[in-house]
């Protein structure tokens, strides 16, 4: 792997950039692997990387039906934060945030993790009570999250409208300074390059069509559009398509897939210094390094795999943005797109073993998957390597839907993921 650096860039420039190698080889499937990851998004590629890097399992294939990072990894609003209420969530997401820090150096790939701070707006008394509850829980869990007055919030984010006459006045905000954004594509590419360098096969345009199980019910391999691959350890990290893949193994899941829309404005010079989320008016926004305002819209109400959202969702989202940030009414929407988010009944992920031996799952991240990318990859790798969950992801099992031990952040606090 050619090391990336200002120097290598300079040296290659003198050669007209003619001899940059492939960042990862376009591998063809081998007949067998020690481990297979289904799904070439950030989570899946991360799992492959950590399997090779931390657990010495290098004979690994990542199977991607399209092109890596082409799913939700490349379609989200790149928000990173860990100020969740419950211990289980705080531990899970903070594990990820700690890995984000220094990921560029570890992968030798600039993922552009920008600690711009994530600010959540409180618009009514209930919001205040709920945010305070988060802040106190976070503090005792060692997760940074602080309360801001409206004036402090506006000082941190000058475009913010804190007029008490607003339809939804800003009564305060919760700020996690370690929160921020990253460049979504580079996360997938960085993990792919680093994993490939450790011997992982990145196999694109390879859709999984079946999961073969032996007489003992354990996984024996996967059928793909590029032939059968034998493997006794399969991790599924397929986001919106998780239900479809798990059904290949005869498993029905507590999942539903919804279209989620996002949009960006035309690029402008720096105008928006942080990430702002408002659950009450359903809007969140940041500004990318390129200068585009990146805006998350809501999900459509019905189950769909079409990656095609409705206009009224965008209308509402922009109305909300213009209420909180009236100076942006004349900004212009450049591009909208849709992703498919897989949602569980308690809106928390499922990450761990399944009833099928040798089959592991990482799904149900809903709208919150990107921020967890390094953590989810690491924990899926651990679970596959040890055939048992790490204590951090142990609570995120399937049993909770039977025994009622749900982890329902939304029900507890109604904070947007």
């Amino acid at each position, binding site marked *: 792997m050619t090391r990336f650096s200002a120097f290598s860039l300079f040296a290659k420039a003198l050669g*007209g950039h003619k001899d940059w190698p492939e960042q990862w080889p376009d591998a063809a499937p081998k007949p067998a692997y020690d481990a297979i990851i289904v799904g070439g998004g950030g989570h899946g590629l991360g799992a492959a990387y950590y399997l090779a890097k931390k657990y010495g399992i290098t004979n690994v294939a990542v199977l991607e039906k399209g092109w890596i990072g082409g799913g939700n990894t490349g379609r989200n609003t790149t928000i990173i934060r860990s100020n969740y209420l419950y211990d289980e969530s705080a531990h899970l997401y903070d594990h990820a945030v700690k890995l984000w820090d220094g990921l560029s150096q570890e992968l030798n790939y600039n993922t552009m993790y920008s*600690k711009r701070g994530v600010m959540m707006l409180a618009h009514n008394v209930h919001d205040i009570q709920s945010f305070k509850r988060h802040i106190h829980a976070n503090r*005792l869990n060692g997760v940074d999250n602080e309360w801001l007055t409206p004036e402090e919030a506006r000082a941190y984010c000058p475009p913010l409208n804190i007029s008490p006459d607003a339809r939804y006045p800003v009564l305060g905000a919760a700020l996690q300074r370690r929160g921020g954004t990253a460049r979504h594509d580079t996360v997938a590419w960085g993990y792919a390059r680093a994993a490939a360098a450790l011997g992982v096969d990145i196999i694109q345009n390879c859709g999984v069509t079946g999961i073969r199980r032996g007489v003992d019910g354990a996984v024996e391999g996967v059928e793909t559009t590029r032939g059968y691959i034998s493997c006794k350890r399969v991790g599924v990290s397929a986001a919106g398509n998780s239900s479809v893949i798990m059904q290949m193994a005869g498993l029905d899941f507590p999942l539903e897939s919804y279209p989620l829309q996002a949009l960006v404005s035309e690029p402008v010079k720096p105008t928006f210094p942080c990430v702002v989320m408002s659950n009450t008016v359903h809007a969140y926004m940041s500004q990318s390094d390129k*200068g585009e305002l990146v805006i998350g819209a809501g999900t459509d109400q019905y189950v769909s795999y079409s990656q095609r959202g409705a206009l009224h969702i965008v209308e509402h989202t922009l109305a909300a943005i213009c209420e909180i940030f009236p100076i942006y009414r004349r900004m212009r*929407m450049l591009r909208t*797109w849709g992703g498919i988010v897989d949602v569980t009944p308690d809106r928390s992920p499922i990450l761990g073993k399944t009833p099928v031996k040798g089959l592991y799952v990482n799904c149900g991240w809903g709208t919150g998957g990107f921020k967890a990318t390094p953590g989810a990859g690491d924990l899926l790798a651990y679970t596959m390597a040890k055939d048992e969950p790490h204590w951090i992801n142990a609570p995120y099992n399937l049993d909770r839907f039977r025994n009622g031990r749900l982890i*329902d952040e939304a*029900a507890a606090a109604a904070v947007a993921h």
Partner: protein
Amino acid sequence: MSGFRLPTGGRVDRSRPVRFSFDGVSYTGFAGDTLASALLANGVMLFGRSFKYHRPRGLLAAGSEEPNALVSVDRGPGRFTPNLRATNVEVHEGLKAVSQNRWPSLKTDFGAINDRLGMFFPAGFYNKTFMWPRSFWDKLYEPAIRKIAGLGDAPTEDDPDQYAATHAHCDLLIIGAGPAGIDAALEAAGTNRRVTVIDEQDEAGGSALADPSLWQWLERSMKALNDAPNVTILTRTTAFGYYHDNFIGAVQRLTDHLPDDGDAPREKLWRIRAGEVILAQGAIERPLVFAGNDTPGVMLSSAAKTFANRYGVAVGKSVALMATHDSGWHDVFALAKAGVGIAAIIDVRDTVDADLLKQAADLRITVKLSHSVIGVSGRYGVKTIEIAHNDGTGIRSIACDALLMAGGWTPSVHLWSHSKGTLKWCDDIGAYVPDQPNENVRCVGACAGACNFGQGAVIDVLPTPMDQSRIKAFVDFQNDVTAKDIKLAVREGFRSIEHIKRYTTNGMATDQGKTSNLNGLQIASTALAKPITDIGLTTFRPPYTPQTFGALAGHAKGALFQATRTTNIDSWAEEHSAVFELVAQWRRARYFPKAGEDMHAAVNRECVAVRSSVGIFDASTLGKIEVVGPDAAEFLNRMYTNPWKALEPGRCRYGLLLKEDGFITDDGVSARLAPDRFHLTTTTGGAARVLNMMEDYLQTEWPDLNVWLTSTTEQYAVIALQGPNARKLLEPLVEGIDLSAEAFPHMAIREGAICGIPTRLFRVSFTGELGFEINVPTAYGRALWERIMAEGDRYDITPYGTETMHVLRAEKGFIIVGQDTDGTVTPYDASLDWAVGKKKLDFVGKRSLARPDIVAAGRKQLVGLLTDDPNVVLEEGAQIVADPNQPIPMKMIGHVTSSYWSATLGRSIAMALVAGGQDKMGETLHIPMPGKTHTAKISGMVFYDPQGARLNV
């Protein structure tokens, strides 16, 4: 000066000169000019700077596909708009435009240093560096990158403009009023179909506007369409998105082209549902890829023709053409006839149609076949071009001040793709064309692939003897993506066109690849040695061109953003200086401060008043549902946790509602008015949710039940009178109801009249005091409130708000669903076992209460909490631990849900959810706060009048 106004021709109104300014310099144009044509006429060739290298740029096109000439327009305070295409900005008197993405000036831009260092900034360079030292990213690198990136400046003030919106319906929607669209409209004119035609330009006609030979036809046709009663024509309207079931979003620009727009809406959003859609969006000419193709003065050949024929402006005095397609030849012939000097026609092809050669000869135009342009000299405008034979020999230069590119045509299939219609590759035009529709839609004219502009060759990069890795031959002009960037991406293993797009940013500029996608595909296909169809095509997504936030949202501006629901009594509260809070969609009075009072003082006063005499409270926002029918009791018995069948008419009962997962979702006191009629109440925020949930069970699980639900939330204004003097105050006002304790006990309802108005009078209490809730027809709410205030004067009646209501109910240990419960709390967790019918076989949520984790020990349970220091009022949301000295992360065993200062008790009180709390009575717990850890003891939840003596009077 390279460009100028032609003596004659064009559709501009030469009798109406217009003064405008660009970068502070004042110019004159004509009505009908765009900013682009007017500046060209004044000899301006330099319009902007590119995104990455800050290279000087002129015009590439004459329409909405323009990638280079982006300007900001300043219409005064709050009316600054960045990133507008000069080719779409109509000039008007006083128009103020400025260039952007340059410092200090357009001519001298320090950012252009990037251009000199360009070799170090290939595609994806930022992935490869800026990583060391680590701390520099946040402090130095990222801020620097951001400063250089971005285009124009963002607005900095609130936009004072109004925006409008509407729904619209038609049987046939035609998008694009060029020749093909107009023909389609003429066909439908005079039929019984409702036809709407929309076009993004200020004038219908499309390509015909640049072809004087069609102007008579155009005039005739537009007259016919304007006269047809069934045809509506919308110009300055862009169809930006094609959504499900022929739903099209379009934005109409109403005032930006006017000097003074008064207070008319600036733009209007059209939400159009069409029976059939005809797409007639035309095609976009492709630039050619060669060194120097971004020099100001190098532009699309069709654009030069448009400037000459539509605006009467020549793009140069001596114009050369680089063609791979016949259409360029025809454009140049048109220019020559319009009096523009032609330096030469260079065509990469070895042979072209003999007729073209003959016409060129007749016009004495030098022709160079089998040749290509290999270089352009002149930084701010074309001075000379270098050409060479395709074999690399015969390099020579030609003097000219403009170079036209004719690279063939790309059908505009954007909206077709939004609609999920499929595309097929068409080799002879080297582009994708519409294939199978997914909606009731068809394409006509050029966007269907019927580009009858002659023959052409499809070339990815023009042949050149130079080292391709050293030259800047641009593909995406705005984002500065060159042919070698795309080759680099392929070399680095990016094979899918989506990867190539994201790695190089080709096609991701504000023009969304209108002029760059196809060239990018061709270059990638050559680099990968794969047919273009194997590389895929990037998805087209709305909007077709960038659309204003305000247009999509602005009609829901300010007060219209979302309705604020108010009660009939709200106006009285406002007149009496109430402080309000928002609860769900409602606004409610939180407290009524007297002069000099803060919330604390006001609430203490209000609490004491209620406990000592009488308080009045607007409870109108509580949800109400009338449940009527023979099976009403049976239905409620299935919904609520507690039994309902035995409830006597005239009596009330507290009802607890669970979701099927066993967690509390709502509660409220409900009354039985008659054997088959109940008056339910719900929480303020839960009203709609509860009604929908009940309808769901009724309609889909128990359709056999004869019972119907009707929301009566807004039928009644509800006034709560609470306090020892409530009865005395009420008695003289009520007719037909015996208010005595015997005749009208606690938790009863009576119907009668008050001040001549029919009322449903509840004797209920959320305060622990003798209390009544008076339901009257909404319209009389305020009048009754004022009458009671007057009558209550002798009891020093005190209006109180939600905050006081919260304190009073907490003193009695009454919970508030959503504050003391949070969607993870069962009736047992909330110490509401008494409200669960033990003998009931079933109710919604019952089965879930038997799940292993729900019956497990150690669940968080609602308890009272008394701080050891009675003056400490805990913060709601504060976390509770058993051992305050443990290290972080601490084991949290619960949190404070409600906490108040109780003026009545002279101390603080609180409620908390604590793990195993009901078995921990009297135990001391710790609440670590920043700087100090508080201690408190677990208690029961009823802090005041536990026997309820004050109620039963």
